[in-house]
C-alpha cells in the first residue's frame, strides 16, 4: 500500500508490506499482527495507537526482529529497511542492523539500563559494537551523545550508575544509546509513560530537536492521543492486530472515519474544554486467538451492520492518503 501525503517527495526509509506475526499457543494461533502495511518516510513521525493487546508491541518487536521464536514467527510479509528486506536475513546480519540502522527506546528506563555498569559504559558499548573507531574516540563520542540529550555536566556523570539518576535522566540515557549510532529509524515504545508531565515535555522536545537535526524517522508506539497530537505527522490506529485507520494526524483528529478511532477520540477527556460525559466503549477487544470472521470491532461498534459480522472490510481510501477498514466508508 502506497500512501500519499505531504512528504510524498521524500524518500521512503521503511516499508512494511502485509506483515503477519503469529504465535503458536495451546489455545491456538494468536494472530498478534495480521497483515499490516505502512510506509515511513525520512524525517517523518508515525504514531501507532491502540489499546493493549492490539498488536502495537508485537509490530515493534517484528520491526526489530526480536520476536521470540518459538512460539512467535513472522509468517509472511516484508519489512524493507533502506532498500533491504530484513525478514529473511540471518540473525548475524540483523545484529549489525539492529542498533545502527534501526534503534529502540523502550518504556521503562528503570529496567532497560543495566544496574551494574556505568552509563558511560552502556553508551560506549553500542558505539563499540557498531562503529569502527579507536577506543579513545569512543569515549569522546559517548560524551558527545550524552551532551546531545542534554545531560547536565555530562563529563562527570558518565561514571554514574543508573540508580544515581532520576527517571527523566535515565530515559535520556536510553535515548542517547538509541541515537548513538545515528540510526535512520528510531522506534519509541511509550517512552514517556513513567515520567512526570514536565519531564515528559522536556523529553518530547528533545526528541523533536534531535529529529530535526538528523532527519531521523520516528515510530511512536503509544495509547495516548496527546502524544500523537504533539509529535506525529501520520497515525496508524490498530485494533486486533490490524491497522483499521491510517492517515495524517489532521485527518485522524478532524475526520476520524473508523468508528473505533471516533470512539477512542471521544473517550479521552479534554483539557481545553468542558466535556459533560465521556463516550465509553463498552466491552473488551476480542481474544486474538479466536478472532471473528468479520470485523473484529463489530461487537463493540455503535453503527454495526449485518455485513460487518459476515466479512472483514477491505481497506478503502477516504481521501488522499487517508484509509480506513470499515464498511461504512464508501
Amino acid at each position, binding site marked *: 500500500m502506497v500512501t500519499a501525503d505531504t512528504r510524498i517527495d521524500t524518500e521512503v526509509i521503511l516499508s512494511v508490506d502485509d506483515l503477519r506475526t503469529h504465535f503458536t499457543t495451546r489455545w491456538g494461533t494468536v494472530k498478534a499482527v495480521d497483515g499490516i502495511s505502512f510506509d515511513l518516510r525520512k524525517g517523518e513521525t508515525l504514531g501507532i495507537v491502540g*489499546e*493493549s493487546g492490539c498488536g502495537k508491541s508485537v509490530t515493534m518487536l517484528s520491526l526489530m526482529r526480536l520476536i521470540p521464536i518459538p512460539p512467535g514467527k513472522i509468517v509472511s510479509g516484508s519489512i524493507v529497511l533502506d532498500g533491504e528486506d530484513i525478514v529473511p536475513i540471518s540473525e548475524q546480519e540483523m545484529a549489525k542492523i539492529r542498533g545502527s540502522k534501526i534503534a529502540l527506546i523502550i518504556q521503562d528506563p528503570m529496567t532497560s539500563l543495566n544496574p551494574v555498569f556505568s552509563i558511560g559504559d552502556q553508551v560506549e558499548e553500542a558505539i563499540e559494537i557498531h562503529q569502527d573507531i579507536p577506543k579513545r574516540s569512543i569515549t569522546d563520542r559517548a560524551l558527545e551523545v550524552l551532551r546531545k540529550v542534554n545531560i547536565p555536566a555530562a563529563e562527570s556523570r558518565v561514571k554514574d550508575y543508573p540508580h544515581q539518576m*532520576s527517571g*527523566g535522566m535515565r530515559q535520556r540515557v536510553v535515548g542517547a544509546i538509541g541515537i548513538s549510532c545515528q540510526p535512520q529509524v528510531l522506534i519509541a515504545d511509550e517512552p514517556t509513560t513513567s515520567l*512526570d*508531565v*514536565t*519531564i*515528559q*515535555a*522536556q523529553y518530547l*522536545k528533545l526528541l523533536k530537536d534531535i529529529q530535526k537535526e538528523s532527519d531521523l524517522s520516528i515510530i511512536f508506539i503509544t*495509547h*495516548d*492521543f*496527546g*502524544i*500523537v*497530537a*504533539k509529535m506525529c505527522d501520520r497515525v496508524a490506529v490498530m485494533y486486533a492486530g490490524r491497522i483499521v485507520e491510517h492517515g495524517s*494526524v*489532521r485527518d485522524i*483528529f478532524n475526520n476520524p472515519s473508523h468508528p473505533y478511532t471516533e*470512539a*477512542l477520540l471521544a*473517550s*479521552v*477527556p*479534554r*483539557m*481545553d*474544554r*468542558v*466535556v459533560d*460525559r*465521556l*463516550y*465509553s*466503549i*463498552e466491552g*473488551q477487544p476480542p481474544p486474538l486467538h479466536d478472532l471473528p470472521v468479520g470485523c473484529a470491532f463489530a461487537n463493540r461498534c455503535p453503527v454495526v451492520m449485518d455485513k460487518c459480522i459476515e466479512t472483514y472490510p477491505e481497506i478503502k481510501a477516504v481521501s488522499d492518503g487517508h484509509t480506513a477498514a470499515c464498511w461504512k466508508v464508501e
Partner: protein
Amino acid sequence: MTTIDSSETKAERGQILLEAKNLKKYFPVTKGLLFSRLTGHIKAVDDISFALRAGETLGVVGESGCGKSTTAKMMLMLEEPTEGSILFEGEDVHNSAAVRKSYRSSVQAVFQDPWSSLNPRMRVKDIIAEPMVINWNITKAEQQERVMKLLNDVGLNEYHSNLFPHEFSGGQRQRLAIARALALNPRVIVLDEPVSALDVSIRAQIMNLLKDLQEEYKVAYMLIAHDLATVRYMCTWVAVMYLGQIVELSPVQELFNNPSHPYTKALMSAALPSHPDTEVEEVILQGEVPSPLNPPSGCYFHPRCPAAMDRCSVDKPEVKEISEGHTLTCHLF
C-alpha cells in the same frame, strides 16, 4: 453504632465533610547507625489546608515528590501528621478513639494498580465483604446481599462473586476495588490515580462510573492525578502542589480559565494537547523538583520560575485570595 441503615444518611452536596488544617508531615533524616543523630527533616507536606465537600471532588495535582501521596496517606490515617489537624464533620479525628474509629470506616481508598491492591487468594465476595466483617455486626446473609448490590452498582454481575481477581480484566478489577471502597457507605473516598494503569477505552468507563456513584451516594472524592484533562473532567476543586505546599487552590473552571500561579501555567503548558492544532504557550520548565530535604529559600518554586523576581528568593509568599475560592501563594499577586 454503624450498621447498614444508620450510615445511610446522605449529606447535601457542597456541605463540608472534612477539613484539613495546617497539615504538616516531616520525616526525620538521621545519620549513623549506633549513635544516630538527627541531621534534618524531609518536609514532605508543609502546612497545607483544604476542605472536602459532599458530592464534590478535590483534585490534587503536581509532579512526583510534591507530597500528593503523603497527603493521601494522612487522610487515610496511614501516617500521623507532624502538626495540624483533620476535622471530620467538625471533630478532630486524632482526639478521641471513638471519632478515630468511625472516621476510619468513613474514609476509604481506591489505589492505582488493581493488580496489586486485590488479594489474589480471596474470592470476590470475600474481598468486598471484608470491610463489613471487620466493622459491622451483621449476618453473613446480609453481607452477601450487600455484596450483590455493590457488584450491581459497579456494573458487574452476581456470578462474578465466586471468582478470583485473576479472572478479571484491569477495568473490572478497578470496579471491584471501587465496590470494596463503597462497602461501608463511606463519606470520603481517596482515589490515588484510579485510571492511570488502565487502557484508554476503559478509563472513560471507570471515570463515568465514579461520577455516577458520586451522584448516587453524595460521597466526597479526593482525586490524586497527574493528568490535567482527567482532573478537568472529574473535579470540582483543584489543588496544585509543589514541594509539599499547595501553590494554587481553585474551583476547576476558574483554574482552567484563569491559571495564575507560574507553576500551574507551566504544568498546563507541559500537558499534552487534545488536538494537533492546539496552540500552547511554550513554558518548558528546566530541571527537576528540588529535594524536599533542602528546599530553596523564599518561594520554593523560584529557581525554576520563569517570572521570578528578586524578592522571590528571599521572602516566602503568603496565601492570597484573588477571586472567590481561588487562592494562591505567589508574589505576583
